[in-house]
C-alpha cells in the first residue's frame, strides 16, 4: 500500500530525513517512534507533500505519489496532524462535512453518522464551533473527520498527546477499528497503550534514519519500547 524507498527530506538546507525505507500494508497498523525532532512528523508531511522538499520514492498502491496534498488525499490518503487540525470558526458538523463534500451527496450523511458513532461527544456538540472544543475533543474531531472519509491509508500524528487515558483509549479503539476494516494506519505516538492497541509493527527512528523495525509483541512494557528508541537499536 504505502512504500517509502530511500526517502530524503529537506527543509531548506537542513537534511531532516536521510534515506528511510518503510511500508504499510492494507489493514495493518504501523507505529513510528523516536525522540522529539528525529523526523517522524516530517516523514508524514513528506508523504502528504506538506512542505519539505523530497527525494526518493513514495508509492501508494503501487503507483508513485505525485502532486499537491489535495491530489494525494483524493487518492485515498488521510492525514491527521498533531496541531491546528480543526477549522476553529466552523461548527463540528461543518468540519466533518468539509471533507465529506468531495463525495456524492448520499455519502455526506454516512460520514457524519460514522464520526458521531466513533465519538458520541461530537454528535452532542455538532453545532458548537470547533475552536471552542477542549483539546481532547479537537483531537477526536480531527481524527473522526479523517476516518469518516474512509481513506485507504490514514497517517496520524501524536493523537494521544496531552489527552486523559480515557480519551487515549477512545482514540486507540477508533484507529483499531479502522485497521480491522482494512485501512492502513501509520501512527506517530509515544503512548504504549495506543501503539499496543493499534499497531502490529513499529519503526524506530533516530536522527532522520530508521534504526530498527520490530513486532510490537517484542515489547511487554512501555519501558522496553522506550529503551529501544532511546538507544536507537533493539533492547
Amino acid at each position, binding site marked *: 500500500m504505502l512504500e517509502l524507498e530511500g526517502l530524503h527530506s529537506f527543509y531548506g538546507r537542513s537534511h531532516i530525513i536521510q534515506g528511510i525505507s518503510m511500508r504499510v500494508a492494507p489493514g495493518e497498523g504501523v507505529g513510528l517512534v523516536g525522540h522529539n525532532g528525529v523526523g517522524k512528523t516530517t516523514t508524514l508531511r513528506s508523504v*502528504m507533500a*506538506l512542505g519539505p522538499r523530497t527525494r526518493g520514492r513514495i508509492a501508494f498502491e503501487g503507483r508513485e505519489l505525485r502532486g499537491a*496534498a489535495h491530489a494525494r*488525499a483524493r487518492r485515498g490518503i488521510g492525514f491527521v496532524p498533531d496541531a491546528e487540525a480543526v477549522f476553529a470558526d466552523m461548527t463540528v458538523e461543518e468540519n466533518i462535512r468539509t471533507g465529506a463534500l*468531495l463525495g456524492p451527496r448520499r455519502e455526506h450523511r454516512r460520514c457524519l453518522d460514522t464520526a458521531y458513532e466513533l465519538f458520541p461527544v461530537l454528535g452532542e456538540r455538532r453545532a458548537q464551533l470547533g475552536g471552542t472544543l477542549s483539546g481532547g475533543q479537537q483531537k477526536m474531531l480531527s481524527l473522526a473527520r479523517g476516518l469518516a472519509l474512509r481513506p485507504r491509508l490514514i497517517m496520524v500524528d501524536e493523537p494521544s498527546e496531552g489527552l486523559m487515558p480515557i480519551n487515549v483509549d477512545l482514540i486507540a479503539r477508533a484507529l483499531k477499528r479502522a485497521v480491522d476494516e482494512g485501512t492502513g494506519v501509520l501512527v506517530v505516538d509515544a503512548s504504549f497503550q495506543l501503539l499496543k492497541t493499534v499497531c502490529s509493527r513499529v519503526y524506530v527512528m533516530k536522527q532522520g534514519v530508521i534504526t530498527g523495525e520490530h513486532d510490537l509483541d517484542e515489547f511487554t512494557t512501555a519501558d522496553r519500547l522506550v529503551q529501544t528508541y532511546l538507544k536507537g537499536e533493539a533492547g
Partner: protein
Amino acid sequence: MGESVAVAALNGLVVGASLALVAAGLSLLFGVLGILNFAQGDFFMLGAYAVWLALANGLGFWLGVAAAAVVVGIAGGLGLMAMLWPLRDRAHALVLLATLALSLILQQLASNVFGADAKPVAAPIDARIPIGSHDYPVYDLVVVAAAAIILAGGFVFLKYVRYGIWLRAVAQNQRMASVLGVPVFRVYALTFVISLGLAAVAGSLLAPLVSVYPTVGLDINLNAFIVVIAGGLGNFRGAAAIALALGVVEALGAIVIPGQAVQLVVFGFVIVLLIVRSQRQRVLVRL
C-alpha cells in the same frame, strides 16, 4: 424633520448597500488569500462602464448588470489572479504595489478609451413613491433590495454550498483544507471571481446614481477599506453590517453637519467601532 430623517436614512441605506457589496468582496479576498486589493474600486468602475456600454448599444440596463457580474467577475477575477499568483509567497508590500499599479492602469485605460468626462446613466425605473412630502425614487429602493438579496445569497453560499464551505475552510486553514482534498486552487480562483463580481455589480447598480467616470471607484474604495478594517479583516458579515451602518451614519450626520465636515462623524464612528472591537478582542484573549 421626521421625513428628512427617513429620507436621509434611506439614502444612507443605498450608499451602504452598494458599499457593502464592494467591501464584502474586498473582505473575502483578504480572508481567503490575505490580499488587500487597492484596485477593488476600479472593478466597481468597470461594472459601471459595463452598464453604460450596454445602454449605449441598446442591450438594456439589467443585461448590463448581468454582463458586469459575469464578464468583469470572470475576466477580471482570473486576470487579477494571474497577475498576483507569482507574488503569492512574496512580501505583502509587493502585492499592495501591484494592485495599486493595476488601479492606476485601469483608470488610465478607462480615460483613454471612454474619455475623462462623466457619463450619465439613466435609471431603469423612473417611478417614485411618496414619503411624506418627498417623492422617493423607487430605483434607489431596488438597489437596496438587490444588494440585500445578493448579500443574503452570499451568506447562504458560504454557509451551505459546497464551494462556500470550502472557501471558509481555505480561509481558516489552507493546509488542512488541502489535506482533506479540497481543491484549493479552484477555491482561490472562485474567490477572485466572486470578489470582483461583487464590486462590478455594485458599480453597475450605482451607475445611475453617481454617473460613470474613470475615477468613480476611488471614494468607494477608500470607504470599503475603512469598512473592512472596522468590520474585521476577512469577516464577510461584519463588512456588510458595518457598510450599511456607515452609510446611514453618514447620511444622518449630513442633516446636521454640512459639507465634507460630515466625514468627521464617519471617522468618529469608525474609531468607536475599532475601540469596541479591540476591547472584545482583549476579552477573548483573556478567556
